C-alpha cells in the first residue's frame, strides 16, 4: 500500500520536471504582431503579414543571395541564437479590440516585443497598453504624427510620418510648377485643391496637414471632406468634391474605400488635372488589380515600389523572394513590415538580451545604415528628444505614378524625388470620359 502512492508521486514529479528540462534548451523571442487581417484594410493586412513572416524566416534560417546582415540567419546570435517567433492577432481596424489583444499578448502569451498596427487609430491604443506594461513596441507602418508625440518611452517608429510625406507632396507640386518633373514642362494651372480623407486618426490628421502645409506653400484647399472608411456609397462625397471644380484631388483612403472612391470618380466622369493618394489604399496591390486601367495616371505617396530595385540592388533581391512566395511585388506596406522586423532583429542583436530594458537602451542608441535596408532611406536612427520621441529621422518618402508599360502591365513609376525618377510623368490626368 505504501509503494503505490510513492510511485504516483514519482510519476507526477517526472511529468512536471521533464518539460522544464526541455525548455531550458533553446530560447525563443516572442513577438506579438497586430495587423488588420480583416476589415477595410484587409488587403494591406495580408501583405504586412506575408512580409513579417518572410523577415523572420530569413532571420531564423538565413537566405543566400540577399546582401543584408539578417540574411546570415541563425536567429539572434547575441542571445545564443534565439529564434524569433511571431504571434499574429487580427485587430480588424478596431482600436478597442487592438488594445484588448495587446493586453492578451503581453499577459497571456508573454511576448517580449509588440509590432504593429498599420491603422494609426489602433496603434494609438496599443502603444498606450505597451507603455503601461513596459513592453517595447515597434511601429512599422502607421503614419499619424501624433503617435511619436505622446511622450511614450517604449515606442519606436521606423516609418517616416505624414508630416514629412505631406511636405513631399507640396515640394512635388512646387517642382511641377518649376518644370522639375521628368517629362513635363512647367505647369502653371494648378491652383484649386480639394481633399477627401477617411475620418479616423490617420485620415483626419492627413487632412489637417494638407491644410497646414498647403497654407505654408501658397495653396488653398477649396474643400476638405472627411468620410467614414466603411461607407458603402461615396457618390455625394465625390459630387461635393467636384462642385468646387478642383485642379487637384487629394485623398487619404484605406483599401476598400480607395477602390470605391475611384469607381465613383469614374462613374461621375471626374476630370481633375491631378489625383494623389496618401499611400494606404492607393498603394495596396488590390487597388491596381481590381481597377485595372482606371488607375493609370493616379499618383500615390509611397515608401517603396519594385522600381527602387533600379537604384538599390538589395531591394530587388528581397522583392524577388517576396514575389516568388506571394505572387505579388512588395510595395509600401510589405516593405515597411519587413523593415520593422529587420529593425527589431538588429536592436535585439545590439541588446544582447531579451529584457525590455536592454531593448530600450539599444533602440535609443542604434544607427542602422541605409545600405542594409531595402528602403531607399539613409538608415534608421530614432530620436530621443525634441518634438518627436522614438521617430526614425533617416527615412524618406517617394511619390509614384501608376503607368502602363510596353507590355500592358500596370506598375508604379517613381516621379519624386526628381533625381530618382524612373519615367516621364503623365500630366494631366487622363480623366474619365
Amino acid at each position, binding site marked *: 500500500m505504501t509503494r503505490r502512492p510513492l510511485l504516483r508521486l514519482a510519476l507526477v514529479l517526472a511529468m512536471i520536471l521533464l518539460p522544464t528540462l526541455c525548455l531550458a534548451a533553446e530560447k525563443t523571442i516572442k513577438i506579438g504582431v497586430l495587423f488588420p487581417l480583416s476589415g477595410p484594410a484587409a488587403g494591406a493586412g495580408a501583405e504586412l503579414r506575408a512580409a513579417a513572416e518572410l523577415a523572420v524566416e530569413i532571420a531564423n534560417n538565413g537566405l543566400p543571395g540577399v546582401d543584408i546582415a539578417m540574411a546570415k540567419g541563425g536567429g539572434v546570435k547575441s542571445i545564443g541564437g534565439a529564434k524569433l517567433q511571431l504571434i499574429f492577432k487580427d485587430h480588424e481596424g478596431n482600436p478597442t479590440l487592438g488594445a484588448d489583444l495587446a493586453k492578451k499578448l503581453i499577459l497571456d502569451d508573454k511576448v517580449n516585443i509588440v509590432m504593429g498596427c498599420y491603422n494609426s487609430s489602433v496603434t494609438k491604443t496599443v502603444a498606450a497598453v505597451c507603455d503601461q506594461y513596459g513592453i517595447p513596441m515597434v511601429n512599422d507602418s502607421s503614419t499619424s504624427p501624433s503617435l511619436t508625440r505622446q511622450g511614450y518611452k517604449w515606442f519606436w517608429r521606423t516609418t517616416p510620418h505624414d508630416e514629412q510625406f505631406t511636405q513631399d507632396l507640396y515640394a512635388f507640386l512646387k517642382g511641377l510648377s518649376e518644370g522639375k518633373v521628368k517629362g513635363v514642362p512647367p505647369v502653371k494651372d494648378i491652383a484649386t485643391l480639394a481633399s477627401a480623407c477617411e475620418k479616423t486618426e490617420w485620415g483626419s490628421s492627413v487632412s489637417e496637414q494638407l491644410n497646414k502645409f498647403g497654407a505654408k506653400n501658397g495653396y488653398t484647399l477649396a474643400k476638405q471632406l472627411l468620410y467614414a472608411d466603411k461607407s458603402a456609397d461615396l457618390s*455625394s*462625397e465625390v459630387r461635393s468634391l467636384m462642385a468646387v471644380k478642383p485642379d487637384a484631388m487629394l485623398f487619404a483612403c484605406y483599401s476598400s474605400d480607395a477602390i470605391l472612391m475611384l469607381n465613383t470618380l469614374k*462613374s461621375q466622369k471626374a476630370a481633375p488635372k491631378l489625383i494623389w493618394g496618401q499611400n494606404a489604399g492607393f498603394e495596396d496591390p488590390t487597388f491596381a488589380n*481590381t481597377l485595372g486601367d482606371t488607375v493609370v495616371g493616379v499618383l500615390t505617396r509611397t515608401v517603396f515600389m519594385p522600381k527602387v530595385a533600379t537604384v538599390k540592388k538589395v531591394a530587388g533581391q528581397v522583392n524577388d523572394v517576396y514575389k516568388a512566395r506571394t505572387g505579388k511585388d512588395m510595395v509600401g506596406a510589405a516593405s515597411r513590415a519587413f523593415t520593422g522586423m529587420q529593425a527589431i532583429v538588429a536592436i535585439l542583436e545590439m541588446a544582447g538580451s531579451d529584457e525590455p530594458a536592454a531593448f530600450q537602451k539599444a533602440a535609443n542608441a542604434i544607427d542602422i545604415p541605409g545600405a542594409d535596408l531595402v528602403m531607399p532611406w539613409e538608415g534608421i536612427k530614432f530620436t530621443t528628444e525634441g518634438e518627436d520621441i522614438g521617430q526614425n529621422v533617416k527615412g524618406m518618402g517617394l511619390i509614384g505614378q501608376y503607368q502602363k508599360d510596353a507590355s500592358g502591365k500596370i506598375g508604379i513609376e517613381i516621379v519624386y524625388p526628381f533625381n530618382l525618377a524612373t519615367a516621364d510623368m503623365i500630366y494631366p490626368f487622363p480623366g474619365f470620359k
Partner: protein
Amino acid sequence: MDILLGAIVSGLLLGAVFALVALGLNVIFGVMDIVNFAHGEFLMLGMYVGLFTSQFLGVDPLFGMAPALVFGFLLGVACYYGFVRYLLRGPALAQLLGTFGLMLLLRNLALMCFGPDERSVRSGLLVGVSFDLGMGMIVPATKLAAALLSVAAFVSVWLLMNRTKVGKALVATSLNAQGARYMGIPTDRMNALAWGVGGGSVCLAGALLVNFWSVSPGVGILFTMIAFTVVALGGFGSISGTFYAALVVGMITEIPGFTDFLAYTVGLRFIGDWPMTAFKFTFIYLAYFLIMLLRPQGLFGWKR
C-alpha cells in the same frame, strides 16, 4: 445649375430604390399590423443572394434579381410559418420584440457565414458606365437600371394588391381580419402571402442595390431606418404614399448637394465649409423624428 440638377437626379434615382425597399415593410404592416424590424436584414440577405448569383454563376449582377425574389418570398413565408404566426398570439410588445430578435439572429448568422468584410460587385455590363445628360446630370447606368426596375416592381405589387382577387383578399384581411375570415378568406394564408410579398420585394430591392452599394452583415440597420422613415412619411398602410415619400427621402440624402448648390452656384460660400456629407444619413433620422413629432400619420394619412 449643374450641381442642383445633378443632386436632384441622384436623389430621385436613389428614392426609386428606397420605394421598393420600403414597400415590403408597408405590405406586412398593412395586412398584419406587425412592424418587421428584421426588414433591413431581409434586404441584406437579398443583396448577398444577388452578389453570389453573379459571382458563382458568372452572370451579370442584374440577373441576380430572379433568385433574390424567389429567395425573399420563401424567406418571408418561412419566417411567417416558423415564427411570426406564434407571435400573433402574444401581446403587441411581444410581436415587436420578436421581429427585433429575428433581426439580431439574421444579422449574426450572416456575420458567421459571410464574415465581416464588405463585398461589392466589381464587374458587370453596367458597372462603371454612366450617361452624361448634360447640365451636370450624370446618371450611372447601375443606378438607372435599379431605379427603373424598382418602379416596375413597385407597380407590379400595386397591381397585385388592387387589381387581382388575391390582392383584394389581402386588402380585406388588412381591413378586418375577422370579417374576412367569415367571408371564407384564409387569414393564415393571407398573412403568409403578405410576408412572402414583403420579403420578396425587399430582397429584389437588395439584388438591385448591390449593383452600386457594397454589402456587409451590418448594412441592414441603415435601410431599416430608411424604410421606417419612408413608411412613416408616406403613411403606414398607404402603398402609393410610400412611393412619393421614398422620392422625398431620396432627396433628403442629397441635402449635401443642395447646400453645395447654395455655396458654389448661388454664392453663399460659407456653407461650403459645413461638413454636410458626413451627416447625410443623420438628416433622414432627423426627418423621422420630425415626422413623428409633427405629423405621425404621414403625408397620406393612416391606413385606408
